[in-house]
């Protein structure tokens, strides 16, 4: 396993393997009973417009710091065993992976809650920006719900 796999929060250009990330998470504890994964992928439609390309940019260091804060708060607040977070940057095609959150708990309930909280909080607090290219050009998305 590469050293990159050892970090529990990463921002990277390259794609990731959901299976590899889950297997890395399983190594943390033999007492994991439930793993909840959120995988965000590129949609073709946005506000009725056809998207041909997505692109993400981040504020290096600050984005990683926010993800690590988010991870530690999720572990602490929801009493889960561990969490990993990966967000891709650069150009991303429709259907490709964008963001992955893996939450491992002894039981499923806390893993579901932690995972859903984490993706909502990531969108709110992490300095990452998306641009969408449609037939009318490229625009930075400002109003994510």
């Amino acid at each position, binding site marked *: 396993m590469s050293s990159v796999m050892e970090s529990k929060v990463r921002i990277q250009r390259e794609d990731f393997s959901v299976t590899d990330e889950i297997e890395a998470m399983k190594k943390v504890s033999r007492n994991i009973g439930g793993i909840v994964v959120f995988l*965000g*992928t*590129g*949609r073709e439609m946005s506000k009725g417009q056809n998207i041909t390309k997505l692109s*993400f*940019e*981040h*504020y290096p*260091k*600050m984005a990683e*710091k926010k993800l690590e804060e988010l991870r530690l708060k999720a572990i602490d607040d929801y009493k889960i065993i561990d969490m990993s977070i990966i*967000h891709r940057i650069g150009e991303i095609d429709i259907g490709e992976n*964008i*963001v992955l959150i893996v939450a491992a708990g002894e039981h499923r309930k806390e893993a579901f809650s932690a995972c859903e909280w984490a*993706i909502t909080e*990531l*969108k*709110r*607090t*992490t*300095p*990452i*920006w*998306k*641009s969408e290219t449609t037939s009318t050009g490229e625009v*930075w*998305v*400002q*109003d*994510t*719900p």
Partner: protein
Amino acid sequence: MITLKYFASLKSIAGKEEEQLDLGNETTVQKLSEILAKTTPQIGEMIQGKKILVSVNQDVATLDTVIHDGDEVAFLPPFSGGSQ
């Protein structure tokens, strides 16, 4: 010298990604926004109207936050990470 960084939509508004300014040893986000209001009015307005966040050394700042020589100040439009 302080370093200013512009992200996403702010890069085309400011016409740059990064710049260096000499503001003496201590200033505040409020004073910086007043200086920027003269050179790049839109950015100055967005800071004061809280349309964008300002960070100092990767921490979210307020208008009162003090900026020291050597600090990195970034202008952050609303985030849009994640899917959807």
